[in-house]
């Protein structure tokens, strides 16, 4: 069944190559092929996760390998779900690149199905990991769109204002969506911690960084939707937000001691 994982990785890689070629062809005839390949990749990953679920008799959200697979899945799903995003070829290339990298990084981790330690045996874990990863996936796409926005916002850029506007809207939409999921992810994590350790919040570095991430995106939402800061400044907040996501998700494991270190 690792075959299914490898096939999904190949599908993402092919999508990346086709999408990259597509960028240099007039009128982008290969756009449909990119979408098809990414869809195949997502279906493959869905099947692979489903198989792991059946095989282990529990949801496949137990270690770093599994959470990375869910992350790659979420990134592609969020991209495919946004029609506006699929209209921008560069975004397809970037998404395929990101998914390929995440899956390749996942291959570096132990992929055996392991039994869960007592603290991880909880339904809250399922909600917690799934909502967090869906949020991170949305933030990843928002990050790509925010970079696209910053590049096309330069006066020398040849991109049309419509493309820049589309980038901006995609950023805002994915953050709006991601914020909901990150919030629910933090809440389910807190409820889970309270049922396992008797405290819903303990200022553990990973918890704290998820809070910082959440605050940065709250600032983005206020600026963007209350029309305080629009355009490039908002895009910069989106980028800072994603840096915080990276610190929360991988940085903390390397830099600090954390109760979440089951992930390493």
């Amino acid at each position: 069944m690792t075959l299914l994982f490898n096939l999904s990785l190949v599908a993402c890689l092919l999508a990346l190559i086709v999408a990259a070629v597509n960028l240099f062809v007039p009128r982008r005839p290969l756009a449909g092929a990119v979408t098809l390949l990414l869809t195949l990749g997502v279906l493959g990953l869905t099947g692979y996760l489903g198989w792991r679920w059946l095989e282990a008799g529990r949801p496949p959200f137990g270690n770093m390998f599994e959470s990375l697979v869910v992350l790659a899945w979420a990134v592609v799903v969020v991209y495919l779900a946004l029609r506006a995003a699929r209209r921008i070829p560069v975004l397809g290339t970037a998404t395929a690149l990101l998914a390929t990298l995440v899956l390749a990084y996942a291959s570096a981790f132990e992929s055996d199905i392991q039994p869960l330690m007592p603290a991880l045996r909880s339904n809250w874990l399922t909600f917690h990991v799934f909502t967090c990863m869906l949020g991170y996936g949305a933030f990843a796409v928002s990050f790509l769109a925010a970079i696209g926005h910053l590049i096309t916002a330069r006066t020398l850029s040849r991109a049309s204002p419509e493309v820049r506007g589309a980038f901006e809207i995609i950023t805002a939409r994915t953050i709006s969506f991601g914020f909901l999921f990150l919030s629910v992810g933090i809440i389910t994590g807190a409820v889970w911690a309270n049922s396992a350790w008797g405290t819903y919040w303990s200022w553990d570095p990973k918890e704290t960084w998820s809070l910082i991430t959440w605050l940065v995106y709250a600032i983005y939402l206020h600026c963007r939707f209350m029309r305080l800061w629009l355009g490039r400044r908002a895009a910069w907040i989106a980028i800072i937000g994603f840096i915080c996501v990276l610190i929360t998700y991988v940085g903390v494991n390397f830099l600090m001691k954390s109760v979440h270190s089951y992930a390493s």
Partner: protein
Amino acid sequence: MKSNAGSRNSSIRLFDFLTSMKFALAIVGLIALACAVGTFLPQGAEVAEYLKKNPDAEHCLGWFTRVGLTDVFFSWWFLALLAILSGNLLVCVSRRLFALRRATGLSRLRIAGTTLVHLSLLAIFLGGLIRGLFAERGFIEFREGESTTFFSTETGRIQLPFTVQLVKFAIERYPAKDDAAQPAKDIYPEKLVVSWPERKLSSVLPVAPGAELAVAPKSPQGVTGESFQIRIVRRVPDFMIDMTTREVTSRSDELRNPAILVAVSGLGGATERWLFARYPDFNMPPKGASNALAIPFDMGYEVTVTPGRQAPIKSFQSTLRILKDQTLQCEKTIEVNAPLAYGGYTFYQSGYDEHDLTWTSLQVVRDPGVRVVYLGFALMTIGLLITTYVRANSLGCAQQ
């Protein structure tokens, strides 16, 4: 008059500024920054540990400590930031509620959603405040059959309004691996190692009471010298000695402090010693032993572990009973992720002792703020569902 109006005007302006969204966002940004600092600098109990490793940091850390940077999340200025944010939110929420009455349709929904989100933050802060002021936290350690009416905290003990009894403790494991080469359980081979390097003596005797070994070490010249008789007289898995009678007993059947009594006899006489697996450099003569013989070689008692194919632990469970005035109030089997809540106290399965499976430790928490925080979580989820829905719609409009 005029200056009075002016000062009132400016105080209104000051109030408007302090309750504005811009000011609020600045505070939110500061809180985020403080949190980041708190994860990079050693906090609270970590400070002493950090200083042990980096003694040079003493001067610098002392300065940080004075301004609360080594205990960011409980420092007065961090709490002040949260208080300012709460005040700000309170005013914002009230203002929004007035706007809600005038609004219609989608905008009404939007305001309701954001009001819920901001109210939820206030609820969570309030719950945290209640926790800080009133929460009690501690632990209970006991064996099967024991009961207690109090729990221990870092500073003392707290009386419970009822009795908690541990009826049973059990560990559940995952199914074992199918590997016939490995023994089913961990085994602990024990041996007595006798060595005298200068005389090329090294012998091993598997430990069992009554086991005997005769050794005849060669002298450096290669001539067989005096011979010795070594015998294992007694073995106790968990050595304990009564200091007055010097009577040796075993505290339990677990290999916690394994010891053997070894008798050695030779031409020069006989002697006996207690040897300990955990303390190889220490040995002890038993009660009334003759010390006629000086033992010229080394003896070491070694216990190693051969891990079995026992699978990892799936869960550990304590069956608890709550009693009041000798009558049973409730009984529940708790495990990690499934605590017992009774009378405002919650009992969490927290630890066990691998060597003594009749013993367990529980965490005890009384936090009246949890309900308020959970209310906040519910409000926030509903509020965010609404605002996300509304935003998705209005963005769709903006696009066309």
